[in-house]
């Protein structure tokens, strides 16, 4: 089963072109969607999740024409939105139960098994009877993934799931995702580059509504391997360097700027070659 997005475009009423001719083929496994804030990631994910209309283009999931047969897709869809709330005065197991009904699991016994299984899986079983209002950010996010998995989805879409989670919580979350990714399409959007490298077999970078790069993370890194150079410079020389070289990344190390440049040949002048990272790939596309 493959998700085929073909020439998808969407322009909002205020003129923002959120998606422009997006074409992607997404196979089984984890797929990372990388891009800066406002690049159109959420729009794309909502469109795939049947929550938004597209102006043109099509999305096919197996035999399902997603834009038309929305409910067919929803039957195999798991979706975790970027932001969501809960009924504060309801327990996790009650709300999961409720959502399980919405997903069509109407057999009581089955539902109980699934809910308990997922509560265990997401390590929420011990707190299942607590009101959701008292959950921490990480617990809430795990609850979110539990609900997304209720109907055993073949397509799981998670929109920036780790924003605001502490590192331990984030690792736990990713472990869970990668296990699911073994036999499901999981589309993960994030702006944290390392996450993609660790998790995803395929990825795409979106900027200003367009797909600027797609492929397997390691191959993409391979493509610029040997072309990335690094230099630590004084602050006041930053502008000069930016004019002179193709600076793809700048960050501070101990208060001093470190810049990465992309160059086919060694620029010398104090630059040292380094191993290319996915971050360099990302910034080489974004900061053009």
């Amino acid at each position, binding site marked *: 089963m493959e998700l085929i997005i073909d020439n998808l475009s969407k322009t909002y*009423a205020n003129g923002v072109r959120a998606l422009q001719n997006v074409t992607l083929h997404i196979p089984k496994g984890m797929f990372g969607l990388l891009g800066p804030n406002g690049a159109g990631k959420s729009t794309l994910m*909502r469109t795939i*999740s*049947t*929550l*938004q*209309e597209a102006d043109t283009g099509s999305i096919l999931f197996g035999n399902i024409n997603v*834009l*038309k*047969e*929305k*409910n067919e897709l*929803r*039957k195999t*869809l798991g*979706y*975790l*939105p970027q932001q*969501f*709330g*809960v*009924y*504060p*005065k309801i327990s996790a197991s009650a709300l999961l139960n*409720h959502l399980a*009904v*919405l*997903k*069509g*699991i*109407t*057999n009581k016994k*089955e*539902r109980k*098994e*699934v809910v308990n*299984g*997922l509560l265990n*899986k*997401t*390590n929420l079983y011990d*707190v299942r009877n*607590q009101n959701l*209002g*008292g*959950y*921490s950010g*990480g*617990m809430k996010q795990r609850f*979110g993934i539990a*609900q997304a*998995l*209720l*109907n*055993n989805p073949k397509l799981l879409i998670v929109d920036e799931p780790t924003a605001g989670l502490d590192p331990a*919580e984030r690792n*736990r979350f990713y*472990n*869970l995702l990668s*296990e699911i990714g073994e036999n499901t399409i999981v589309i993960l959007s994030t702006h944290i580059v390392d996450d993609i490298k660790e998790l995803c077999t395929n990825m795409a970078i979106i900027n200003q509504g367009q797909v600027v790069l797609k492929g397997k993370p390691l191959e993409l890194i391979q493509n610029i391997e040997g072309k990335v150079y690094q230099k630590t410079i004084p602050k006041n020389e930053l502008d000069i360097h930016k004019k002179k070289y193709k600076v793809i990344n700048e960050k501070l190390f101990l208060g001093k700027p470190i810049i990465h440049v992309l160059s086919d040949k060694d620029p010398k002048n104090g630059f040292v070659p380094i191993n290319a990272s996915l971050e360099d790939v990302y910034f080489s596309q974004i900061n053009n």
Partner: protein
Amino acid sequence: MWYEIFKFELKYRAKRPETYVFFFFLFLFSMVGVDFIFQGVEMGLMKKNAPLVIGKTMAAITGIFMIMASMIMGVPVLRDFQYNVESLLFINPIKKRDYLLGRFLGSFVVLLFIFGAVLFGMMVGEFMPWHQDLLPFTPINYMQSFTVVVLPILFFGASLFFVTGMLSKKLLVVYTQGIFLFVVFLLTKAIKNEYLQALLDPFSLTTLTKVSEDWSVTERNSLEILFNGVMLHNKLFWLLLGVIILMIGYHKFSFTIISKTSKNKKIKKSNIDERSSSIIEYSIPRPNVKYTIKTYCLQLVALSKFYVLSLLKETSFWAIVICGMIIILINSVNLGTVYGVDSYPTTYFIVEELQEMSLYFFIIILLFYSGELIWKERNAKLSLIYDATPISDTIPLISKFVALVSIYIILMLSLIVTGILFQIANGYYNFELKVYFFGFFLEILPFLMLYTIIALLFQVISNNKFVGILLALLFFIVNVSSEYFGFQHSLYKFGGKTLGTYSSMNGYGHFLKPYLWIKIYWLLFASLLLIISAILSVRGTETKLIKRFKGVKHRFSKRIIQFVISISFVFIGIGSYIFYNTNILNDYWTSSEKTVFRANYEKLLKQYEYIPQPKITKVHLNVELFPENRSYSVNGYYILKNTLNQPIHDVHIQKKIASHVQLDSVIFVGDNVSIDTKYSEFDYLIYSLSETLHPGDSIKMKFIQSYTPKGFEDDKSSTQIVNNGTFFNNKEFPTIGYNKKYELSDKDEREEYKLAPRLNKAKREDQRELVNAISGGDSDGINFEAIIGTNNKQTAITSGVLVKQWEENNRNYFHYKMNQPMINFYSIVSADYETRKDTWQSPFNISNKPVSLEIYHHNTHEYNLDRMMASMKASLNYFSTNFSPYQYTQLRIMEFPRYEVFAQSFPNTIPFSEAIGFVLDIDDQKDVDMAFYVTAHEVAHQWFGMQVEAANVRGRHMILETLSQYAALMVLKDNYPEEKIQQFLEFQREMYHKERKKSTVKEPSLELVENQDYIYYNKGAVAMFRLQKEIGEDMVNKALQHFIRDWHSQTGKFKTVSGRYATSKDLLSYFREVTPGSLQYIITDLFEKVE
């Protein structure tokens, strides 16, 4: 600083659509506000722009739309919490005082702006074309009323809603305060002390009534509404209460967010252990999901349950339930009150009271809870998760609908329990659960279901909670008021009509069938609306209505299409069936068609009003009643006699104008008549006799008439011939000549159709009416005989002696014959009766057979039979002793269903409504025995009306009604202590003063009274009592004795000589005769003067 917050609030509000929608809505409503509020209220000579009317209208509009105030004032603080900006706000260096003051004043100014629409709307409304005959336009009156009446209560409401919103942080709690205010308003109505009532009424409607209670008509039209007297106290009270609430709120409001987070922290601590433990060797079961009908049903049930539980968790709901129960317990104290006496708490009274009182609660729940449910997922920010589940588009909305309906049912059950508790508390144990069940689940629930769907539809379309609520309310108001613009056929008037009156005797009778068909028809329509709403509802992030419309084609599943098509077919099918019944089997008349018809009747036929016609001198009827299908057939004859001194060539016959009444044949025995049918449109036929009817000659007119109703009508169909409790009179049968009763009586309508102004009653000197005892009098007395057949359960009764009674073909037959002449006025009654019998022996004429007394009543209505029987005896005693002997050998009372609330005397029979005496709960300590009194009054009509008739001119009712009042009062006086008489008279005085204010015409004196019942009943009773007090009971009785002797319809010497009937002038001359010269002025004062 507060000013910045104030400005921010104003700017925020200026951008919100609600602000303008509310303003616009109030503006439009206020334009027709006077007409809406005073709809159906007799305003008398008061004009629609009198300051008092303006004040009351403003008060009522403010009261009704207090919910707008709650929507505006409840949110300013709540909003910050809702959008989680409270922590951003409260860390800023703003003071609590500045924050609250700014928010409050800002919102209050917006509220004033919105309610300013009432002021301007009403002013503009004054210039609308339908407002004519007004006082000159005086803007200051509006401003004054607005300042005095509206501003203070707005301030109070604003404070209350602001504070509850800020402290509870829940919108539903705020709305509930609106109910609280309404409850206070209702509670004040139960307060006996008038001052307190006026003081505590939050909307100051009672206050305005109290302020103006002593105003004359001119004062009502001119005096301004000012801050003084009880009005000032009322306004100060509520202003002060508002200030106190604000102070409490200020004190209680905490300017931190700690209260909100402390709970979370505690929970987090307990979870720390759990967080470190590691995971995941657990496989998730793979559920086997099938999307079958069964799945959908289970989903529907589970979701409905979920929503019901979530609504039941709302404290506001329970607050409403408890408020409802309290209100009902307090208000049910006075049930079915007639003449100041309450009835037994029979179930139908309780149900009617509950229905009326609880409707407001139901509407509040309907409007607000539908909004809450529609927005439930989005408010919790769970909607994206919901929307991405494979639940069908329709199930969530349907389950929300089911949940709301379940909530109504829960409220209804609790109301029923309250009603039963009330009955138990009053020692009444005949609960009649069926009546409770029908009253709520048949009468109210379908109505609520229909409007719930409307509310959901508007929520979906507007996609704005407040606008949705308002649109639903607007729809409700427009739909209700459209009826007054002739928009009334059940097929296109949303929801159809209400179910008719319930009667113990007849249940819901024949109203039930059409009601059910029409409700099913609309429920089907509403179910289509519900499906459409579901398909249009927001799913995902596309909220624009246009986008949603475009998306509809993908949301129409095959199943939905099938459903819509099949429901549409059934809908159209039932609609056609209804149309077939109401418009094809029956004639459907719009009200303007009716008006035109009546105008034409008068224009074309008025010429015949006084043409010479023979009089009916004998009536013989064979009536077959078929109660089960509400039909009858009659085969009878009249003997018509030329009592004039000129020959008669034509006989004009008016058939009763009503559908399905067939006059199958009219035969003038021994004459070859020719029929002129040019007025057959009006069922008015002119028979030209081949042989002239000379003075003194008679002719026999045979006729066959039948009534066979077909299908059902759209209008409330006739309540005369019903399944149990038929009651109609001789007007059902052919009458001679022009019938004035078909004329238009409304002054404006007459003007519109260029008809001459119509007198309520002819002048006392009108020679043509002096010879009529009733309008269009076609008889001066008849011999009467009737054989009536009815079904085997019922007893049929009419005037006369029961000669014979038998069964034939499984039907009951009764043969009645009157042994002496009687007036041409008889009723035919048939129902399943129990009988109470007794006799009365005249003390003077021991040789005569005793008079048999009979009360025919519904089986459970035995409460007051003894009182009625006692009254019959006492009355016969008093009247035959003091006036003249009783002329018949029987006196019967027959109960009839409460479609009409009166008792009426016919020769030796008195049909008596079940609502008027049979279920009165008379407490001899505190009540006047009205069952006794009304009976006495009706028995008195056997003298005043049967023995002596009055000419059909002004003062007629003084002879018939005022004298009966007097006679009954004397019987009451003989049997009850003086204080009861005083209590009775006090009630009559009150009624008189209350009613005269509503009158639109100049008040006449008693001797010239027209149709004003407050004069001939209420003032009459008081005047006659005064007269007998002054000149002595004996003297009055002597005068009446002579009056009856001289003006008796058959034997009175003046009557026979003059050939005319008595007038009030004749009567007064008998009073003057027995009144000493020094007291003559009393007669002038009481009867000839107005004051």
